[in-house]
């Protein structure tokens, strides 16, 4: 069975698991009652969420004047947070869809949790533009529906409306993709459960039986949804970047924005996946399913996307100089040396300089380094959006309207509140659904389980050892693969 796998491949499932072991290990978190640690985290999250709801209600009651936005700086923390949360979501789709198309087996260990993270992050993101509208009860006006005002339609030429379509499609498709993957796993829980849990999971598992034809269709559906989600995820952050790029503000009006935003989104998203997975694997004891190899793979993606982001920053600076356009040049000079210089250097350090440590394999495989870097990157990517939005607006064409902006407690409260929402949903998710995709992990067991890879690796090491011996002793190296193969 293991003959088709390279001996250099690291096992993705440790602990010589059988199919039944996988079921038991991965269903455990939904069967046991939560421990003290979970309850502590949950209670904290829910209180933070309640404070966020209070701040949102405060905003709606008093109007968005309580945010201290002004005529110069019309977008502050709200849109910064919106872009940041949307970006976080992108890693989930990248793992579940793009890595499915590339047949990367390591995705099976992390895709379920990453997709959940996507959905929750998009929910947090969607909150900001809606409350930024001010009169939230008129939010339905953004949808094109026949109405008594004419019918008066929204402006389909506006990137803000494109955002509405992009984000609602993204949320819908992510939920469908995630739930379709969950159905067979809910069936696994259902078949082990009794009493009220059995009734609940019977409802949730949609009558899944595991029939061969259903699996065939399930795979066909997953593949096409992955194929759809791949351009979709690229389009979402492209359209978010259009909010800026289609304007005529220096520093925003650039064609590099779409690829640069997408790379930044994947970068920050993977950082958030790392933060969550490092804690989840430890608390739920999933180290054999989310191995150091998984963490290292994700750190490689972080290194690549972080470097792309760095190149984009430098390209922007170069083009500002090369264009000879003084307003563009001023915009970038102002970012680095203007009133918000600290956020620019924070961004440069966290996003461009610090991820370069991941060139070292030892650091890529270190849990502590990974954890600290993931926090750093999340902060850095938040700074990036703040630099783009607030810094640029603070210094516009008219020096008489130049301004400075500091968020109020309400704005900070709403941002902190979205963390409450995010973690409340994630903590609930770890208790009702398997955090690792059970069926998908089983399907890679024979090609990635350590007990199946070990003979292969041992054989490889022996052959390489023989070769080294032969070279060292100046002898001719005779291939004797058959003898070794028979030996194993």
């Amino acid at each position, binding site marked *: 069975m293991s003959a088709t796998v390279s001996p250099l491949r690291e096992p993705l499932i440790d602990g010589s698991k059988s199919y039944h072991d996988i079921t038991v290990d991965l269903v455990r978190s939904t069967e046991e009652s939560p421990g003290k640690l979970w309850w502590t985290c949950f209670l904290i999250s829910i209180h933070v969420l309640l404070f966020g709801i209070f701040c949102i209600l405060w905003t709606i009651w008093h109007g968005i004047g309580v945010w201290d936005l002004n005529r110069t700086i019309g977008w502050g923390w709200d849109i910064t947070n919106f872009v940041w949360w949307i970006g976080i979501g992108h890693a989930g789709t990248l793992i579940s869809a793009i890595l499915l198309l590339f047949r990367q087996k390591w995705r099976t260990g992390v895709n379920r949790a990453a997709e959940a993270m996507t959905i929750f992050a998009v929910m947090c993101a969607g909150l900001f533009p809606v409350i930024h509208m001010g009169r939230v009860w008129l939010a339905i006006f953004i949808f094109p529906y026949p109405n008594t005002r004419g019918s008066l339609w929204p402006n389909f030429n506006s990137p803000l409306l494109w955002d509405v379509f992009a984000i609602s*499609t993204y949320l819908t*498709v992510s939920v469908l993709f995630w739930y379709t993957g969950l159905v067979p796993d809910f069936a696994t829980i259902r078949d082990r459960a009794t009493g009220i849990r059995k009734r609940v999971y019977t409802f949730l598992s949609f009558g899944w039986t595991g029939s*061969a034809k259903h699996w065939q269709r399930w795979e066909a559906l997953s593949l096409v949804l992955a194929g759809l989600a791949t351009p979709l995820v690229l389009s979402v952050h492209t359209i978010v970047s259009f909010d800026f790029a289609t304007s005529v503000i220096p520093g925003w009006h650039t064609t590099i924005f779409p690829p640069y935003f997408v790379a930044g989104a994947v970068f920050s998203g993977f950082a958030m996946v790392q933060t969550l997975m490092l804690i989840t694997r430890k608390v739920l004891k999933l180290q054999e399913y989310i191995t150091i190899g998984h963490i290292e793979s994700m750190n490689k993606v972080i290194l690549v996307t972080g470097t792309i982001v760095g190149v984009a920053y430098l390209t922007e600076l170069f083009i500002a100089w090369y264009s000879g356009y003084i307003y563009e040049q001023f915009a970038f000079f102002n970012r680095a040396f203007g009133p918000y210089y600290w956020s620019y250097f924070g961004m440069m350090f966290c996003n461009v300089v610090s991820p370069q440590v991941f060139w070292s394999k030892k650091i890529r495989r270190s849990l502590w380094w990974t954890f600290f870097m993931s926090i750093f990157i999340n902060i850095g990517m938040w700074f990036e959006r703040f630099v783009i939005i607030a810094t640029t607006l603070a210094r516009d064409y008219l020096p008489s309207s130049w301004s400075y902006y500091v968020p109020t407690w309400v704005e900070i409260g709403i941002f902190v509140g979205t963390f409450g929402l995010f973690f409340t949903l994630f903590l609930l998710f770890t208790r009702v659904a398997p955090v690792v995709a059970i069926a998908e992990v089983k399907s890679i067991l024979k090609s990635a389980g350590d007990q199946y890879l070990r003979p292969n690796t041992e054989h490889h090491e022996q052959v390489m050892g023989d070769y080294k011996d032969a070279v060292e002793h100046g002898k001719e190296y005779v291939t004797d693969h058959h003898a070794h193969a028979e030996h194993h």
Partner: protein
Amino acid sequence: MRELGKEIIFGLYDDEQDLLSAVSSATHDHMDIYDVYSPFPVHGLDPILGLEESRLHIAGFIYGALGTLTAFLGMTWIFTKDWPIIFGGKPYWSVPAFIPITFELTVLFAAVGMTVTFYIINGQGPGVQNPILHDRISDDKFCIAFDTHSVEEGSAKSFFEKTGATLVEKKNI
């Protein structure tokens, strides 16, 4: 739960390799398999079971095309016939600006349409209960089922014994 009024005899196997060789030998002996169940998709099963490739992706293409047309023709009608407005001196029918929404609705229609179709043709949905032959099928057992109307109980039993099934049972569904 719906009653199908069928009497099923089924055998469980411990490994997908045992399942694959058992299915091959069943099709070789022209035994009419009612269905095969597994805890995860077993690759290489479809051809020997004689399952044709799913046409779900064709449905997906049609839904997607429907989304493209809905978005593009809808925006065209709204901005050229129903309520033409000039935005920034651009033409009423500004096609490049329609591309993002057209793309998004293509994806939305294809994804929603395909997923709904998937559950309908599978006979699945929220709260639907289909007969489950054995609790371990969604865990670690691989199952071949025969309808006793088309395969005699005796020959099914000897087949399961020959191919190494670890458990053989009868169930009315």
